[in-house]
């Protein structure tokens, strides 16, 4: 299943380890060669790939970091890694922007009355050691630690260290800690953890809010698995129903969105349990459990459910039948966030449903568990802080956590950090809401620069290794702890060694060879057989206790949802310019987080999109611009988490607002999970409209006479529907293959045939121009709309690979975004709840209208069919963009800025465009050239799949395929014969080389 293509193999050969490359610096602009004798695996102009593990979220995908002249310029998925199999999400892509972030703290900072005082790392370390020793002297439990989820070895080190300091092991703080799911698992399966799911084997998915395409557990992995079960094969595809009050990206990919009142999921779940019994399921259950369940679920008849939850009765009925027919159904509980007060019940119900419908529970891998399960419950975190508040003594170590931002602010426990007596140390690299409260900021190396072992799931060992030398000279966290805890008597001379010892002792590796192999391949990935669940079943009265108390659905009031963000996760991504610049796939709004409201609600309040509203809950108040969408129920207000940092560097400060402010500090009593929904006490317009949001160094000045025409929201889309044009097409599952037969080719928009950008695509009756030939290759791409989930990974990858400029909200508002590839979101004209995502990039037309109008041949047709854009020939007439029917050309209105050291990330193979120049997708021509060189050396032609543009490479669902059309056996060529194939606006006879496959939709 790991497809080890040529390209990957080359990469892995290239994979080295910085163990052999001690001296790479990151100052190439000073001297091109990092040092006098360059390490043997560093050849100037040639990339070296280092295998490591992504630490942008707890999922732990395997990555390959592309290192050129000693600096990492791009991160790609590690094809050997079972979690993500070579693919990577946009957050992972943006990891480099953490390392090169211009606002990164380069030296330790000590808080003084009059602000921060910079220390050397040695001083800071000594200072810290002092403090810790002092605290340890004072007595027990004087050293407290709060950390993000870390690898087993490192957390072991933490434990040892803290133990040495006579203190409790550290507390793992993750804003999204899946408490309710863990509790439910514990209740139902007797397993206090997070098993992973064999989603790919299911034929029916029912999710009560689990957003597994965005943030839930392991998005890249489940994205892939989802499309495996949801792709069309021989006329059938799995079915996916999403039950929730609003439309997340995951929900937008569902075949059916069963929109219900907030907190009504459990009602539906119970109803489904009742129906399951009706259909004679649950034989395997113990009788008293069965009775209990039946008692509880019996009142939830179809009508009752419909009435309580506000779902459409008839749809609900269909859902029941589909669910009963399903061979291998899989039910998910609540999502990562946006969890209501019934989350525990919902997750329990989900687990019970799984048990009822598939007593084998074959789709749950109980042995293969997600590491994030080690995160502590919110309740524990709060107790931790309460404890501190009681006696604010000793030292508090904070490893890359941001409680000040991620905990509801009202009566925030975090205030304890302000206490004099408590010496707080933050190992963070950024001045964020929490570290600014710390007394000492001691930045450590970031994941791309450091050693660790982080295995996202329990059946693999995945390495974290330095992919480049430290940019700031900060210490490895591991080394630091070794030194702090053991001083001279350290068990290992550094954490790297400590790590190898650990791995050796745990029998993961036998010898140096294994070690090196691990480093080469990024880990040890042999599969363990997943065991059966140990069904220590929930007891009847337990069920009664858990499910008896269901808080009633909130159909009346205005309910506010804070959803985890595809782009910023819990907010840790908010200072990565790419994540800000790439717009949210559903709202197409960049740089801001508006609050999504149903048009009906808006009309009642006399509001319109772009108005700034004030939301007030009993816990707090905040203001945000309004975004109008059918994607939320009337009465529901939705905002994504992650922005609104008071402090977090230039890209995050003042961008959007932080919905945590509104949330209740309380937790769900049983599971101890936070509650991400809240009832609004007031919701009113501020009368203001969103002005131009503050942004970093806004280039040039810009004032408008009269009205500012663009909508105030920094959104990149024009119309949300396609006005009956041939752009993003869908087809019903049942008419698979029908259309092509009845279709008789003509000249109109709808009956124009698919014409390949090859000589055979020309027809004397239609074409004024003679066909032209290409040399061996005619590059082309196939985009399968049925596979595209709109996750934006491709867009981010494109930014990373092609040095695409970051323009900021003001410029985006003016319509000057630079994205070469953007995921266009089209709503169905008849049903605005149905979404189709359309990756739009240069179509590399054979008869490209943009070319001939240029006075200087800047865009022209290459021998291999590419639509080349010669940057330094362009004089900026912009005629090409005018004449491009796909509007995919981008213009450099100004010189875009890469504040140091962000410029170190720039890809040396791609020109950085100066002002006044047109640019656009080049099919990553630099990669094609590279492949050419390789093929030439080996005296052969480029193999199919050898060239992969950045977007294709990273797409988690393999929606994009790239290759040579002239090769009859190439994958692209074969796909073009699929009857779903069509060209956007093909009747213009541009003969695009980007061929789309219609999305296949199905009714329940």
């Amino acid at each position, binding site marked *: 299943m790991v497809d080890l293509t040529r390209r990957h193999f080359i990469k892995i050969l290239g994979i080295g380890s910085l163990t052999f490359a001690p001296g790479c610096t990151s100052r190439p602009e000073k001297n091109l060669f990092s040092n006098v004798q360059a390490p043997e695996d560093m050849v100037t102009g040639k990339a070296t790939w280092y295998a490591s593990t992504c630490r942008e979220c707890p999922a732990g995908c395997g990555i390959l970091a592309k290192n050129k002249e000693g600096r990492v310029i791009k991160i790609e998925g590690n094809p050997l890694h079972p979690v993500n199999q070579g693919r990577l999400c946009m957050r992972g892509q943006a990891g480099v922007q953490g390392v090169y972030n211009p606002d990164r703290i380069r030296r330790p900072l000590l808080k003084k009355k009059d602000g921060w005082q910079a220390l050397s790392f040695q001083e800071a370390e000594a200072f810290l050691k002092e403090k810790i020793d002092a605290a340890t002297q004072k007595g027990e439990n004087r050293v407290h630690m709060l950390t993000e989820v870390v690898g087993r070895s490192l957390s072991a080190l933490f434990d040892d260290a803290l133990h040495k300091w006579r203190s409790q092991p550290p507390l793992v703080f993750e804003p999204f800690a899946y408490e309710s799911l863990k509790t439910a698992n514990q209740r139902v399966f007797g397993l206090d953890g997070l098993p992973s799911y064999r989603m790919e084997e299911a034929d029916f998915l029912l999710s009560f809010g689990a957003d597994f395409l965005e943030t839930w557990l392991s998005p890249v992995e489940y994205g892939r698995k989802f499309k495996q079960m949801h792709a069309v094969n021989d006329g059938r595809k799995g079915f996916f129903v999403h039950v929730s009050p609003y439309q997340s990206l995951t929900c937008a990919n569902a075949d059916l969105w069963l929109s219900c009142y907030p907190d009504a999921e459990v009602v539906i779940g119970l109803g489904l349990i009742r129906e399951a019994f009706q259909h004679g399921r649950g034989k395997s259950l113990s009788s008293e459990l069965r009775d209990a369940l039946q008692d509880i679920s019996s009142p939830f008849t179809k009508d009752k459910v419909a009435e309580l939850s506000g779902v459409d009765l008839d749809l609900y009925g269909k859902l029941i039948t589909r669910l009963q027919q399903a061979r291998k159904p899989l039910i998910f509980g609540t999502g990562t966030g946006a969890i209501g007060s019934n989350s525990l019940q919902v997750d329990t119900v989900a687990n019970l449903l799984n048990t009822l419908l598939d007593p084998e529970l074959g789709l749950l891998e109980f042995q293969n568990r997600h590491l994030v399960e080690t995160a502590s419950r919110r309740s524990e975190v709060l107790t931790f802080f309460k404890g501190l508040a009681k006696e604010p003594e000793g030292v508090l170590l904070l490893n890359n956590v941001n409680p000040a931002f991620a905990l509801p602010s009202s009566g925030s426990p975090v205030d304890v950090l302000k206490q004099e007596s408590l010496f707080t140390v933050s190992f963070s690299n950024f001045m964020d809401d929490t570290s600014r409260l710390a007394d000492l900021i001691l930045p450590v190396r970031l994941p791309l620069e450091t050693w660790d072992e982080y295995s996202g799931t329990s059946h693999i060992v995945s390495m974290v290794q330095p992919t480049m030398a430290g940019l700031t000279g900060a210490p490895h966290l591991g080394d630091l702890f070794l030194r702090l805890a053991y001083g001279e008597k350290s068990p290992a001379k550094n954490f790297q060694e400590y790590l190898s010892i650990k791995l050796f002792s745990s029998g993961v590796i036998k010898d140096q060879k294994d070690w090196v192999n691990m480093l080469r391949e990024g880990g040890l990935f042999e599969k363990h057989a997943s065991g059966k669940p140990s069904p220590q079943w929930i007891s009847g009265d337990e069920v009664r206790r858990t499910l008896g108390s269901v808080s009633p659905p909130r159909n009346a009031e205005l309910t506010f949802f804070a959803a985890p963000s595809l782009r910023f996760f819990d907010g840790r991504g908010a200072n990565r310019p790419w994540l800000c610049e790439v717009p949210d796939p559903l709202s197409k709004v960049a740089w801001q987080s508006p609050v999504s409201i149903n048009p009906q609600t808006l009309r009642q309040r006399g509001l319109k999109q772009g108005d700034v509203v004030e939301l007030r809950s009993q816990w707090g108040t905040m203001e945000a611009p309004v975004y109008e969408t059918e994607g939320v129920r009337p009465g529901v207000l939705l905002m994504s988490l992650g922005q609104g940092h008071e402090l977090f560097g230039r890209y995050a400060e003042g961008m959007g607002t932080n919905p945590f402010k509104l949330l209740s500090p309380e937790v769900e009593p049983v599971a101890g999970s936070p509650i991400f929904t809240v009832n609004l006490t007031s919701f009113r317009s501020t009368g203001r409209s969103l002005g131009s949001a503050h942004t970093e160094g806004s280039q040039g000045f810009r004032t408008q006479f009269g009205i500012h025409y663009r909508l105030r929201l920094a959104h990149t889309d024009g119309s949300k529907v396609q006005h009956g044009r041939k752009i993003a097409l869908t087809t019903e599952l049942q008419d698979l293959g029908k259309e092509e037969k009845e279709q008789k080719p003509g000249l*109109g928009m709808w009956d124009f045939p698919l014409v390949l950008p090859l000589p055979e695509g020309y027809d*004397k*009756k*239609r*074409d*004024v*121009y003679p066909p032209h030939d290409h040399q061996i290759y005619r590059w082309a791409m196939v985009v399968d709309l049925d596979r595209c989930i709109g996750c934006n990974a491709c867009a981010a990858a494109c930014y990373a690979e092609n040095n695409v400029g970051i323009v900021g909200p003001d410029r985006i508002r003016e319509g000057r975004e630079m994205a070469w590839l953007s995921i266009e979101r089209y709503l169905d004209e008849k049903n605005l709840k149905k979404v189709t995502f359309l990756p739009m990039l240069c179509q590399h037309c054979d008869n490209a*209208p943009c070319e001939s109008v240029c006075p200087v041949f800047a865009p022209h047709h290459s021998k291999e069919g590419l639509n080349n854009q010669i940057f330094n020939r362009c004089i900026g007439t912009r005629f090409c963009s005018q004449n491009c029917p796909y509007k995919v050309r981008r213009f450099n209105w100004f010189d875009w800025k890469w504040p140091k050291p962000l410029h170190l990330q720039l890809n040396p193979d791609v020109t950085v465009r100066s002002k006044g120049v047109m640019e656009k997708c080049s099919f990553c021509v630099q990669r094609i050239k590279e492949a050419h060189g390789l093929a030439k050396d080996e005296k052969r032609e480029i193999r199919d799949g050898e060239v992969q543009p950045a977007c294709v490479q990273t797409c988690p669902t393999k929606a994009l395929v790239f290759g040579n059309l002239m090769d009859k056996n190439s994958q692209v060529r074969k796909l073009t014969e699929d009857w779903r194939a069509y060209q956007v606006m093909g009747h213009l*006879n541009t003969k695009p080389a980007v061929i789309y496959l219609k999305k296949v939709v199905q009714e329940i």
Partner: protein
Amino acid sequence: MIRVFSAFVLVGLGAFLFQIAGQHPEKAWQAYLVNFILWSAIAQGGLLFSVVLHVTKARWGRPLQGLAESFAAFFPISFILYLLLFFGRAYIFPWLGGDLHGKEGWLTIPFLFSRDAVGLLILYGLGFGYLYHGLKLKRIRGDASEKSREALRARLSVIAVLYIMAYALVLSVLAFDLVMSADPQWISTLFAPYAFVKAFYMGLGGLTIVAALVRIRHREAASLTSSHFHDLGKLFFAFCLLWADFFYCQFLVIWYGNIPEETSYIIQRTMTLPWSRLAWTVFILSFVFPFLILLNKQVKTKPRFMIGLCSLVLVGIWLEHYLLLSPSLNPKADSIPIGFADVLITLGFLGLMAMAVRFALAHFPELIPVQQQEVK
């Protein structure tokens, strides 16, 4: 003379009826349509010459105006011919019963015929109005008071302006309905102007011929100096260029745009056999010849020569009309389906036109520019 023409008419009629009776009625009707458009255009364009001169108060062409007005005599015939077209509808509207790409509302036989009939009535009505007042003006010249003459002139001007507008609009609608609709998918915004500029071009051709005949007939008596012919020739030359320009404007834009909905039309007509041959013939007859020849000043003043040249051009334009229509009417044709019958039918129309003009000149001698009546 008159006999010859009536003979033409009879021959043409005969050929037409024979064709209709035969197994190829569609051929007959196509020839009929082409000729109807062509000869009506000559008449409409011919009169336009006089009208334009009147509106611009240009003095140089006075003696030619009368001759131009004589073309109006063909209007009633043209109208009757148009009405007869109704019986051939099945053969001349390939879109009948075909896919109309949503144009059903516009392309319906009753609506089409009624609107065009109304249009023609208005146009011809104005034409006659102009003719009538023009004649009146000529008649009362000399005697009646300056004042009444002024009044007449004023009214004449109003009608003239209206005629020009009607000319543009009605010919546009005709061009859309009778010619462009032959390929319902195809559109070209310049097509209508192209049509009425062409009509004026033809009108000037016809006028030149008539003027030349008059000149030959009356020798020196005719108050048509060679400078008149020179100016007329220049105008003819100018419109030859304008016509070609309008063709190029359409061709270039469509060629460059490369949108099959548009290109297929010109590809079929100009780039694929057999039609491409015809296209070149038209181009040479109606543009290359007149262009190269009329660069020279002298030839413009040679009546006999001009008759030959103008006839050539008119033949070219006849073929051009044929080229526009026929490919849609005979999509399968592998050779250009012009037969002897087409020639005869054309002769018939020529006869009609000639008789009309002769009739006019005979009944209103003041139209003929001969010495005795002073030219003001």
